[in-house]
């Protein structure tokens, strides 16, 4: 199976994604993991738009997009239909964080509760990018977006924490929940393979930096995703039947190394450095490190 997958790319070049697009890389890796025997269900969003401008498509596997918020419900129907027909294609949803954390929660909750044999992948670029960088439930604390802008009365950017979707889906009884990052392609491919081969509803949240929305050079996409992990602001882990296994350990760097490279966090450093806000974000990373036990060697936060 693995050999066949490597022979050709099932996510074709020539799509309309920006150079350095994290989600485009996730799509390509996803299909390497699934091979041809898959049906992909997309939500409305950047990936849907850049990969399927009629009459062209980048998807060389069956692909369907219905609406913004209903991919999990559409996938439920496809699964029921295939079951009735005795077919065995894997069903994979690939949806952005707005579609997953916010508008699609009802459909996802229903599908996971019912236990459909589907894999739901959220490509998390931490805001509504297709509509012009608005805040979603996945936007991290402190990030400036067009709907959580900084201003004289709001110097800190997004005042709300990132929602813990993996925990919410694990609480539905999902047998396999994982986080991953395009910085580690083999990790993502392996997790997708595990998810699609695990019966029942599985969830993978893959960190896919958006150079346009986050404000960094397109050549730095992988470096930025690595820094998210190296600072503890993103943790790669697997939850099997609700229990965390295999969190990726790191020698942790200070969060400001990650923050200062992105325009969405620039207000924390210029015109004046906001130490208190940076400390709050460092505390989020510290809490992640504590919760998942990722520190190889703990470093003290900056004074």
């Amino acid at each position: 199976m693995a050999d066949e997958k490597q022979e050709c790319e099932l996510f074709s070049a020539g799509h309309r994604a920006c150079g350095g697009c994290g989600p485009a890389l996730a799509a390509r890796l996803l299909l390497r993991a699934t091979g041809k025997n898959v049906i992909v269900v997309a939500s409305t969003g950047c990936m849907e738009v850049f990969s399927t401008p009629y009459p062209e498509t980048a998807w060389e596997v069956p692909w369907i997009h219905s609406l913004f918020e209903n991919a999990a419900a559409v996938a439920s129907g496809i699964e029921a239909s295939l079951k009735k027909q005795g077919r065995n294609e894997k069903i994979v949803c690939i949806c952005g964080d707005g579609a997953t954390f916010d508008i699609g929660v009802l459909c996802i909750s229903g599908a996971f509760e019912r236990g459909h044999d589907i894999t739901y992948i959220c490509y998390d670029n931490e805001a509504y990018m297709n509509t012009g960088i608005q805040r979603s439930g996945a936007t991290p604390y402190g990030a400036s977006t067009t709907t959580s802008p900084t201003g004289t009365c709001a110097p800190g950017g997004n005042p709300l924490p990132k929602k813990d979707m993996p925990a919410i889906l694990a609480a539905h009884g999902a047998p396999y929940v994982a986080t991953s990052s395009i910085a580690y392609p083999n990790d993502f491919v392996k997790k997708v393979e595990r998810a699609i081969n695990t019966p029942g509803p599985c969830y993978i949240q893959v960190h896919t930096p958006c150079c346009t929305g986050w404000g960094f050079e397109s050549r730095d996409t992988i470096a930025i995703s690595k820094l998210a992990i190296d600072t503890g602001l993103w943790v790669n882990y697997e939850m099997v039947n609700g229990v965390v296994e295999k969190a990726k350990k790191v020698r942790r760097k200070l969060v400001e190394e990650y923050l200062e490279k992105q325009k969405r966090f620039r207000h924390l450093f210029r015109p004046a450095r906001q130490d208190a806000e940076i400390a709050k974000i460092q505390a989020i990373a510290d809490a992640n490190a504590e919760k998942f036990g990722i520190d190889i060697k703990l470093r003290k936060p900056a004074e």
Partner: protein
Amino acid sequence: MEIMEGSHAVAEIVKRCRPQVVSAYPITPQTHIVEDLAQMVANCELDAEYITVESEFSALSACLGASAAGSRTYSATTSQGLILMAEVCFNAAGMRLPIVMTIANRSLGAPLSIWNDQQDTIALRDSGWLQFYAEDNQETADLHMITYKVCEDHDILLPAFVCFDGFILTHTYEPVDLPSQEEVDAYLPAFTPYHRLDAAKPLSMGMYATPDYYMEFRYEIDRAMYRARDAFIKAGREFNEQFGRDYSGLVEEYRLDDADIALIAMGSICGTVKDAVDEMRAAGKKVGLLKIRTYRPFPGPEIVEALKGVSTVAVLDKNISLGNGGAVGTEVKSALYGTGISVYDYIIALGGRDVRKRDIAAVVDLAEKGEGDMFYGLRTEVL
């Protein structure tokens, strides 16, 4: 022939239409249908996947996915549930998926009302779904077979509402002649999807269209709607040949031949109107009924043809386009433009208010006096 509840008759005929995936959410007065179907699946009488979803929105979304994957699908809903599905309705039509849904017509809140009118389906008249309205439970059951045949025709490929009035038909026991499984199988062939999601033959469905393509997609849907006129007539004729009940008309005439005044209505109210027409005829009044069976596609040419020789038309609208009168009346006026026929519209029976034969006679009196385009039967004392 068996005496049975309208909802039960629907469930029985849907079972015989062999949907492979059923997905529905409970809402009054539709619930008896989906309860019956769930029981049939539990009893292995219906070989379908039954998905108990968390909302109507997901019910239709699941049907959309199942239909795209190549299965015959079914759902039923009403009122608020249908409006919650609205986004998926437009989407399913645009994707040309022949989903069939029974609608137990009911009013929309606010104020909350569980009772009958036809506001719910009328509100979705522009969604690209075929809309067929039944007068009684026999017609409701029969229309399901015809509807699947029309929808799944590869020249049509559109979803459809089979509409029957909430409570007035859903909860009423009437004699219904249900065809056997063998008879239904002989009439309705197995579903052969025009295209489907299939790893052996990859395709992309639901892509986005730039201004260079969008209008052509909409045009194609509109053409399919017009082709559905002939498809409905053909399926109705085939039905008549096999079962001896004729639904081949997009409209149905009742005592219109020499009529001066024509009433126009849809759904169960037509039964009351027919009785009222008989009484008025007995009293010497030349009045008849034109029943609209297919609201989408709209039978404009058939209405013009049927009303030749009529001087006055009274349209009974169990809905209102707030700020512009009833939807049926508006479209009838449009169809009759230039004929010189006087058309008066009456908003009637909203939110389950009863309509009696004397109300029909009163409407005819108003039309004769040239008084119309009004709410009929308002309780002015509570205004």
